[in-house]
């Protein structure tokens, strides 16, 4: 039974993530007054990339991408099976770090700059994500997602500030403007293609699929703020996830990419104000 559940999570998560990315591209195109690609375009892209030649710069830089995928899949499994959110977050960070190592391994100047920027991005969003876990523990007295989503009151009541801070840093994780410094998707460009410049063919397909998993992980973090023991709240939670995703798409299309100094500073200011103040207030009750 458990095995079926694990296989279902591994297969269904990228399907949903890919569809969301397809919606993202259509909505982005409509916001720009274009018709946009078909809904299944992300799947066509990945299918094409698997048919292409994979250029090998050296043996290591490809290896790291696959390790990164393994850790991101592991994170998804922990989160969607109601496991320890703290473990999930650290496994996700490990996946990101392997991705950065892959960027450095190729020795290309574009990849190196992309990797350095990815590190800065990790530094920007990681404190807020950790504060989110701590906040959820404060509110529901458990690090396990299955306990958090079976509480009587939704966590958003205790943690509105933390939630707003999380939505702010999700822009990093979803690789949206203004914080898509290290690698941007579809039409966008930044220092050629940042950390993905040297990847082609199957490796790039793996990076794309990893991103689909990360989209679902990001939205799961939103989900746990709304879900409670009552079944109807899970519907609200899904709607909240979709609204947050739509909000990020609108922000993506209405803002220009910022300098890394600004990205880092604004993320930490938001973390400090929204996250810390919320936790301070919570600690008095």
């Amino acid at each position, binding site marked *: 039974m458990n095995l079926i559940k694990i296989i279902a999570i591994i297969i269904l998560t990228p399907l949903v993530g890919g569809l969301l990315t397809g919606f993202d591209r259509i909505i982005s195109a409509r916001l720009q007054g*274009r018709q946009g690609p078909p809904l299944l375009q992300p799947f*066509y892209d990945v299918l094409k990339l698997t048919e292409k*030649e994979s250029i090998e710069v050296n043996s290591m830089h490809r290896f790291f991408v696959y390790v990164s995928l393994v850790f991101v899949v592991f994170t998804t499994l922990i989160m969607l099976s109601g496991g320890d959110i703290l473990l999930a977050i650290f496994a996700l960070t490990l996946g990101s770090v392997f991705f950065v190592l892959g960027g450095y391994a190729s020795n290309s100047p574009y990849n190196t700059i992309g990797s350095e920027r990815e590190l800065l991005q990790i530094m920007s969003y990681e404190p807020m994500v950790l504060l989110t876990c701590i906040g959820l523990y404060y509110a529901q007295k458990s690090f396990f997602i299955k306990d958090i989503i079976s509480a009587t009151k939704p966590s958003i009541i205790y943690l509105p500030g933390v939630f707003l801070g999380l939505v702010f840093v999700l822009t990093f994780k979803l690789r949206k403007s203004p914080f898509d410094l290290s690698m941007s998707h579809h039409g966008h460009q930044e220092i050629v293609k940042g950390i993905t410049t040297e990847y082609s063919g199957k490796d790039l397909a793996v990076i794309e699929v990893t991103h689909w998993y990360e989209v679902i992980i990001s939205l799961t973090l939103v989900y746990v703020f709304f879900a409670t023991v009552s079944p109807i709240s899970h519907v609200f939670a899904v709607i909240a996830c979709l609204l947050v995703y739509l909000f990020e798409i609108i922000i993506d299309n209405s803002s220009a990419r910022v300098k890394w100094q600004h990205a880092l500073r604004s993320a930490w200011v938001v973390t400090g104000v929204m996250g810390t103040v919320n936790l301070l207030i919570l600690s008095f009750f």
Partner: protein
Amino acid sequence: MDGIKKSPWILHYDGTSCNGCDIEVLACLTPLYDVERFGIINTGNPKHADVFLITGSVNEQNIPVVKQLYEQMPEPKVVVAVGICATSGGIFAECYNVAGGVDKVIPVDVYVPGCAARPEAIIDGVVKGLEILGEKKKNVGKRK
């Protein structure tokens, strides 16, 4: 299934173009023509590209650049020469610094004439290139 025909990513390089064709290439991305309907994306990276669009003729200065960009693209790939300068050198063919059309340096699959080439013609050229891309994909499979 032929994924490659549904998601051709383009690398655009300006040889010695007067920018007339370049503007038309970029016009394809605007809401009026919107080539993303066909999954076409303008990448800036040869390692992600499937279609190499060249505008303008090649000269002695950019021959190594064109060759390097072509070699960095993963197989299967097609080259589309956009505009009369890229197809044959056009009115600049006799200039002392111009080597001629793009086919003097790398194999060209589709020629799109015009001065400047119209966006409709460029889109037609890329779509024609996709057929060739499909053929080339089969050959890549055989070679392995």
